[in-house]
């Protein structure tokens, strides 16, 4: 078991964003995390990434307790994450952006640069381009390249594929698949069903702060509880009557 | 009796600190932005009061309103021309913007008004009054009381009116506020106006009772920081408590240790707060 989250809750004052969520990921899996807006999956995701400390519960990664570890410690341990809105270092070039990630495991500049060059090639970017001249798909790609350079064992992708044209989406999916093939375990938070169906083998559905369903993508989307979560009770009843 | 006099004097001044600091804390709460020129707004309010008295022969209500209004307009103008552009940019730009503004306002005031200390000519608030066993200048008493009333009014405005709840909504969650049809840009502009206006009228109140020069802006700015840090960033009520406390501490330090130490103690308190309790008494960090 590479990542195991047990009974994770997160409260903001009186509001319980995450209520007893569990997640376990084996090394080499590629898992999807879906659910309607406000279901708590982003908060849960941030707990996994170390940005927020859970109120209760435990998160164990490769045998080590990372429940309250900082984002930096997460990266060092081998957990990488992307951000929903790309946080490109706009005053730097593409290669320099990726080098920031590469420096984690390659403290010497030349090693970091070589490693970064390989990643830049793998992700199909151009190294000397100023990062600010990249459009949204380029920035999302750079976001992924940068975190890849940190050499993660587990990659948490936060809606990294939103807002892309069908062609760009196809390229992005191919990229994620290629990354997965190098042996990196992936957890994707996504709204786009195509991504979930084609990439993931197992899906967890979040609603109201906890996991309400889990299984293969096909099984999960036809589960009543899931339909109800997305579309509401009335739709489910109408389905039965009509 | 002297002790009581010192305490009351400190509280009255502290009330004025509370009033102008509440503006600063409002901006922080809404925009995560620190206005380094806030002290200069207070200083400008003082000079507006002076000009109204000297040119128009106006009394306290007139110069108070003039200070509030003119600074409100200035606050809005600064938001529209400067702040709303830098808020989206790098930290360097954000901090330099109001820092540069502070310098510009301060030294313009030095240039126009000279570095001499001035006071407001005799107004209807002249004289001292005897309450209990102590003597209080009428101006100080009125200024302090009005300051408390206005600070409370601001608090009530924020928590009990439609406009206030819109302001708070933007402070709480900008995106959600937009979804509810509130325009953050408008609300932030209003907040800047209110913040500057509060500083302006606090300045006018201060001018009735205490002498000043363009240099006071720097001091008031720092005092506002301390009050806001102590009271909690974003909390007007916190500013009220903290302002009174700071005024009290200042008065006691001046009395016990000597006048020069009143600022040292306050700044020292700020540094201590940063180390021990940055979120202050009542607010979010």
């Amino acid at each position, binding site marked *: 078991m590479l990542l195991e989250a047990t009974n994770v809750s997160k409260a903001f004052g009186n509001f319980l964003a995450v209520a007893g969520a569990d997640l376990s990921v084996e090394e080499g899996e590629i898992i999807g995390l879906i659910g309607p807006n406000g279901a708590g999956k982003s908060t849960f995701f941030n707990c996994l990434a170390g940005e927020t400390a859970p109120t209760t519960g435990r998160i164990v990664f490769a045998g080590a307790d990372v429940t309250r570890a900082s984002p930096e410690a997460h990266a060092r341990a081998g957990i990488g994450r992307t951000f929903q809105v790309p946080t490109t270092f706009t005053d730097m070039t593409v290669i320099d952006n990726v080098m920031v990630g590469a420096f984690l495991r390659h403290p010497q500049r030349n090693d970091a640069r070589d490693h970064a060059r390989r990643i830049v090639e793998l992700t199909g970017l151009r190294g000397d381009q100023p990062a600010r001249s990249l459009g949204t798909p380029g920035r999302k790609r750079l976001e992924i390249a940068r975190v890849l350079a940190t050499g993660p064992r587990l990659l948490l992708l936060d809606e990294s594929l939103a807002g892309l044209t069908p062609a760009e989406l196809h390229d992005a999916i191919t990229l994620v698949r290629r990354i997965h093939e190098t042996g990196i375990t992936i957890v994707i938070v996504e709204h786009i069903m195509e991504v979930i169906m084609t990439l993931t083998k197992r899906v967890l559905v979040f609603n109201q702060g906890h996991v309400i369903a889990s299984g293969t993508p096909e099984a999960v989307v036809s589960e009543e509880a899931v339909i109800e979560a997305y579309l509401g009770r009335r739709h489910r009843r109408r389905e039965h009557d009509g | 009796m002297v002790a009581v006099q010192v305490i009351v004097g400190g509280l009255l001044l502290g009330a004025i600190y509370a009033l102008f600091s509440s503006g600063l804390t409002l901006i922080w709460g809404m925009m995560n932005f620190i206005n*380094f020129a806030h002290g200069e707004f207070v200083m400008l309010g003082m000079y507006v009061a002076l000009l109204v008295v000297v040119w128009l022969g106006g009394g306290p209500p007139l110069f108070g309103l003039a200070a509030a209004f003119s600074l409100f307009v200035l606050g809005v103008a600064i938001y529209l021309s*400067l702040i709303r*552009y830098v808020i989206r940019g790098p930290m*360097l730009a954000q901090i330099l913007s109001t820092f*540069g503004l502070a310098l510009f306002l301060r030294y313009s005031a030095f240039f126009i008004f000279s570095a001499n200390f001035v006071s407001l000519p005799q107004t209807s608030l002249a004289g001292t009054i005897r309450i209990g066993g102590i003597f209080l200048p009428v101006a100080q008493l009125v200024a302090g009381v009005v300051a408390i009333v206005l600070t409370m009014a601001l608090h009530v405005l924020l928590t009990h009116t439609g406009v206030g709840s819109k302001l708070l909504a933007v402070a709480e969650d900008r995106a959600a506020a937009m979804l509810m049809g509130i325009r953050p840009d408008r609300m932030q502009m209003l907040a800047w106006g209110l913040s500057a206006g509060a500083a302006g009228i606090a300045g006018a109140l201060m001018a009735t009772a205490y002498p000043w020069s363009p240099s006071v802006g720097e001091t008031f700015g720092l005092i506002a920081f301390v009050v806001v*840090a102590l009271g909690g960033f974003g909390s007007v009520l916190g500013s009220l408590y903290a302002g009174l406390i700071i005024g009290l501490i200042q008065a006691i330090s001046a009395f016990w240790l000597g006048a*020069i130490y009143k600022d040292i103690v306050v700044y020292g308190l700020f540094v201590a707060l940063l180390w021990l309790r940055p979120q202050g008494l009542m607010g979010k960090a």
Partner: protein
Amino acid sequence: MAAAAGPDGQSVKPQRLTLTLLAAALLLYPLVLTNPFYLDIGVTFLLAAISASAWNIVGGYAGQVSVGHSMFFGLGAYTPLLFYTLWGWPPVAAVPAAVVLSVALALAIGLPTFRLTGHYFSMATIAVAELIRIFTGTWNLVGAAIGLQGPARARGWWDLTFRSELPYYYLFLGVLALVLATTALVERRRFGFYLRAIKASERAAASLGVPVRHTKMRALVLSATFTSIAGSLYVIKTGFIDPDSAFGILVSVQMVIIAALGGAGTLYGPLIGALILVPLQTATNSLFGGGGSGLTYILYGGIIVLIARFEPGGLYELWHRVAPYLRRRAHAA
């Protein structure tokens, strides 16, 4: 943009040429313009460039905007004169002690504030600088409001009191070279990349494993060290210090505006800024006489606001935006 750390080989040749020309100009300046007036401007320029470059490390590269950096400058200035006044030490011998004090102060400020948002740090720098300034003005040991003086006449070469400003010029030039070389080295290595990442997005930097607080602290300590040295150089030359010339807000402002005008976060930005502002300040001081300093700071305030509003990257950035356009027009013509 770190031209030095950019893609390999691409822009090294023109850079080397610029660097050589610059070094030559600076080295030969006092030999060509021998008038003491020009020499004085040169010395002032160098000192301003050193201070601004020192500030640049933490304010420009790391994006942690200190508006009270005079506290380090002042410590660097007071300590040598204090050691001289108390124990007769040659001022230059106390420079390491001054650095130690400045580093301690840097740690005291950075440790609590670097775990909070950037504004806390900026506010803390103003408050602490002001606190120290007022306090120094009341403390008799350090001369209170009057301040301290250095050796009036040289007791030996080690007092570094020279009649001509020429030795100071080359001493300062050496220190400037040291600061710039250090900054260039930082730019190329992991530390420099991490600084720029932190400036761009602390959140993203942390997620990539950058030790954010630790890195900021290192930048502040390095910056404080060089700023302290600048203060020491100042008193070694002028032989006098008081609370305002040591810890005053105008000392802090000068560092910030010079770096920001030229280009905060660039190697040569502070030099460019000093090149423009030092002669400008000398000119306005002589133009407006006594009331000059007031007008100068009105101007400074205005310039800072304009930089913040329109070109936070300073003249360096402005040049890089405009130059391609100019080149195209030149080619078309």
